[in-house]
């Protein structure tokens, strides 16, 4: 198995995540896209860890998973908050402040 295969897979997932974050208007879908990006990072970390023959990559990945869980929880709470006040989760309508 070639290291670069994993890295390219991760790069592809990361870029797809970027697309989703930029193109999706629904807040929940944006959060899902963010998870794609973080997951790409994890694949990188595990692959590099295996390549380097140490467990630090795995440890790093575990921290990323834990933090990502916290992030998605907080993000969901904020999206809910916005939904409650606006009855919508469309992010492109959130533009009271500008300039």
């Amino acid at each position, binding site marked *: 198995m070639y290291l670069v295969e994993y890295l390219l897979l991760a790069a592809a997932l990361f870029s797809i995540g970027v697309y989703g*974050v*930029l193109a999706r208007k629904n807040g929940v879908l*944006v959060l899902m896209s963010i998870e794609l990006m973080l997951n790409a990072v994890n694949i990188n970390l595990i692959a590099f860890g295996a390549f380097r023959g140490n467990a630090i990559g795995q440890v790093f990945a575990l921290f990323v998973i834990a933090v990502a869980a916290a992030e998605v929880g907080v993000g969901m709470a904020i999206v809910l908050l916005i939904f409650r006040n606006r009855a919508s989760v469309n*992010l492109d309508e*959130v*533009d*009271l*402040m*500008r*300039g």
Partner: protein
Amino acid sequence: MLDHAWLIPAIPAVMFWLILGFGKRLPGKGHELGIAGVGASFVLSCVAAVQWIGRSTDVTIGEGAHVEHVRKAVEHSTTWFDIGNVHIRVGTYIDGLSVALLVVVGLISLLVHVYSTAYMHDDRRYTHYFAALSLFTAGMLTLVSASSALQMLFGWEAMGVCSFMLIGHWWEEKENSNAALKAFLTTRTGDVGFLIGLSILFFANGQTFDVRVWNANALGGHVSHLVLLMGAIALMGAVVGKSAQFPLHTWLPDAMAGPTPVSALIHAATMVVAGVFLFSRLYGVFFTGFSIAAPGHGTFTVPAVIGGITIIIAALLAFVQDDIKKVLAYSTVSQLGYMVMALGVGAWTGAIFHLFTHAFFKACLFLGAGSVSHSGSHHSFDMKRDMGGLRKHMPITFATFGIASLALAGIFPLAGFWSKDDILVTAGHNGYELFMVVGLIGAFMTAAYMTRCVWLTFYGEPRGAAAEHHPHESPAAITAPLVILAFLSITAGWLNGFGFHYFGHWTTNETLVHALERVNLVEPRFSFPAAIISLAVAGSGILLAWLYFEKRALGPLQDLAARNALAARLKLVLVRKYYLDDLYEKVIVAGIAGPIARGAYWFNQTVIDGVVNGAGVGAKAAGHIVYDIIDQKVVDGAINGAGFTAEEGGTLLRIIQTGRVQQYAAALFGAAALFGLALVFFVGT
């Protein structure tokens, strides 16, 4: 006192806080503290002066015919802060120059304080006014006694802030607050030069701010000439801004919006001379940097040119002013031009001496103008509308104003004669004949416009307020300072006149002697032919103006502006102050700052979003075409151009909205990818 000179600025600084804290609870609402503080400073300054004069002239410099005995400057400093291995020191550096300035500032400030108790009586911000005066005085005293250039910056900026508060003291009128802001910002523009100059010289002199070291290194040739030139040019910016030299002189006449005693303090005797002081304190730097020591006929230096231009253009402007304080303001600008020009032609003593004498008669004139408006013209400063014939009602004011005017005009044997003469003779002697001529023209104009001013105010028929309200003499708190200043306007010149040269001996210092020594410049002695020429010039100025106004003579010139289009045009140019303000406000501020700001805003709003949206719209349009072709729905798409239906038109409009988080995100990723590519490409190769 020379060893404890730090007390002199410290006392008014402490008084500032005391007035702020307790001023309102005192019976006099705070002026007691201000007067006590400045009075103490003045007394201490006088003690310092006596000690300085009594100090033995134990430093011998030069040889042969040029041997000079000078007093050693008293320097005390302590470490202020360290950055790395560099110790920045703070302290006092007292020599003849500092002592002269300390005495002048202390005296003028004290008189202004006393005068203000009457003039500002019942003002709503009386206490704050005195607090600001104290801080202002402390700033100037800090500046003149500082041993480090960084410390000078502190005094310099403190004065800037105080002048902002004092000029805008009556801010209820928008005009006044605009004037305050203008003064602050204009001088700050010059201050950038100060900061740059400080940085350059700090590093050029081995990371020190010590002014003595700067001068010594500059004169000793330890710093490259190019660096000194850059430093001097940068500092010249500060001098031009603070001392209201062309082309940054426009703030000073506007700054007359402040209360009159403030004008006297700030704009005649202290703040504006800060630039001149900086110049003379760091004379070694300027002297070498601008190659002032380049004797030869027809030479010129940057400061001399700036000063010369300022003398003429400001004097011309003084002719067309109807506001008495503006006449005095332009006169101040013109006289500051003399000082800067003098420094530029190597007439160091002349410049300082002119600074010294000018402080007395200009303060006297400003306070006199204040007295006129206070008791004679019912708070008006308009000479044409509300004054005239006041000499009968206000004899003391008239007499003192007249004396000060004659002193300013340079009439023998009053103060201005000696100092101006000193400058002109030195300029001629040092090979700067052109500037001697400029100075003579300026002297003629000075005499003429001051005659116009005196005539309009005190002679002729009473007009407007001077006729309607009963003019009377001002109270003693106002006239007493006038009398003192008038007395000094008569006598101060003798310190360096009649062949005495006390002033020159007292103020001369190592820097100066070194500078002159190196190039064989000598401070020339009094010269009769020159004196007679300058007296004749000044006298003819007075005479012509007198004939024009009193005798209505010089027929062809009377009301020339009303009859001749060219003259009218020229007068308009003067009235509009050479359109410099228009240049600054309409062209520079509105034309550059505005569009830049708008441009940046527009860039933020339009370009960034526009790129985002444009890319989106463009790509979307392209996508539609492709899609349509692939799906063979050509008809629909082709007819509607790029496939814009009405709905998409609406989308287009809505796209212009901003504040959208995902556009921000697109900028984040776009910048990340672009920067990343650039870095990988440039660094990686």
